[in-house]
């Protein structure tokens, strides 16, 4: 199995969720994150002092999938997250040894 992680723009979360569901992925885990990359941040002003906030809000999405689905899920993620502007983020995939569904104790692909 694979763990696919996507760091994307917050506004794309809904489109990503919809695309994954359409593909057949039934679960995912989301964390709020912030990212630093080429897109740089923005300037804020407080009482006569300017600051640059260089970490831009992102969401970090994790999906566990079967090996066979990994490539396609990556495609789905990339497409549904893309806006074409800088800051669109990254998707990566990591090998997973085992997955357990807590409720039932099922293991491996059955646990997804």
């Amino acid at each position, binding site marked *: 199995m694979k763990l696919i992680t996507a760091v994307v723009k917050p506004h794309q979360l809904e489109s990503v969720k919809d695309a994954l569901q359409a593909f057949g992925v039934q679960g995912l885990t989301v964390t709020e994150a912030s990212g630093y990359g080429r897109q740089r941040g923005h300037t804020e002003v407080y009482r006569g002092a300017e600051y640059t906030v260089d970490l831009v809000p992102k969401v970090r999405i994790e999906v566990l999938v079967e090996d066979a689905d990994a490539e396609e899920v990556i495609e789905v993620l990339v497409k549904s997250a893309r806006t074409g502007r800088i*800051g669109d983020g990254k998707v990566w995939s990591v090998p997973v040894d085992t997955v357990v569904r807590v409720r039932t104790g099922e293991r491996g692909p059955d646990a997804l």
Partner: protein
Amino acid sequence: MPDGFSAGDTAFVLISAALVMLMTPGLAFFYGGMVRVKSTLNMLVMSFIALAIVSVLWVLYGYTLSFGKDAGAGLIGNLDHLGMRGIGLNDLNGSIPVTAFAAFQLMFAVITPALISGAIADRAKFTAWSLFVALWVTVVYFPVAHWVFFSDNGHGGWLVDHLGVIDFAGGTAVHINAGVAGLALCLVLGKRVGFKKDPMRPHSLPLVMLGSGLLWFGWFGFNAGSALAANGVAGMAFMNTQVATAAAMLGWLAYEKLRHGAFTSLGAASGAVAGLVAITPACGSVSMLGAIAIGLIAGAVCAAAISLKYRLGFDDSLDVVGVHAVGGAIGSVLIGLFATGHVGQTAKGLFYGGGFSQLGKQAIGVAVVAVYSFVLSWLLGQAIQKTIGFRVAEEVELAGIDQAEHAETAYDFSAVGASLARALSTPAAAGTAPGAATGGSAGTAPGKVTDKSSEKTEVDAR
């Protein structure tokens, strides 16, 4: 002080003016809690700027347009008091100093445009809004206040003195006026990105509740203070305000429970505001039981009315129309039914043997103010939209208007604190900015300046 002066009445009206002033920050919180976190500050500042702009204009020419001697036909005040000239320290209006009266009425002029802002949450340029406030009070509020509030033995404003419309504390001049202007403006600006699709749920309901609490509190100044004296009428207006508000909260919650299955805190807060709005014109002419009836009706009807925007497809973001226009109209019209003739006014409503006469007058008053406000507000909005632009870019709206228009974000709760941002430039470092009269030591600039050149071709609108 001259004869007829009353320290008790003056104390009452001055403190009432302070209470009404607090309503504008209260409104800011009520609205500010209801928007998404990314437009919180913009929402707050839209109210605060009304405090700034209207107060200055009031002194310059607003007071005299509203409360200067009638210039003829009951349409507008004359210019005798431009810059507040000719107002002596001890001149009286009834039993109170004119300055106290002017202060009290000023606060009404401040909150009315602020009310409008809820209709166009998340998407109005701040400079355009500021300009709108200045123009709107000039061509809409000041005249309408003259029509409704300037009573002068039959030679005052035409609605109050010629037609005989009853509006104790501003159902027409304040609430219908603002509510209908909100409708006009949200039509001019168009719907928010995601309207009807994204939830746009309130980012802080405690802030909304705080706002409604301060509004309720301040409204005693608004309504009871409108007696301009600490007397029995003020006492009755006070009680009516309290019980109508209470009843409206119950009405709204009941509607909501039946319709959506839950009593929400936002419903409680909104119901209270609807009740306050509805009793505003009526609190000086109905009994306490009448006030309860008006409150119940207003609560339930406004709770229903706010869904109109989804049916008809206008994005009145924070329900200014559903609460202020509808609530104000309910209260104004119901006077025609519930006026007892024994509270502050002698005209009787239908239920108290007064026939349809007062009802008709009330309806006319409502209609006149609504039409006038709608037309003028729409024209002003369009004029601004066509010239300097009223609405922000879609990218700005998505990323959040606070950042783009105010260069700030509302909260920073991260324990990470300092580390998420870095000093770009402190004022000393910005010594080369235009207009800066910095002395020699700009070289001591301490802030780190991040590299803004490479690749920064686009902005990350998230």
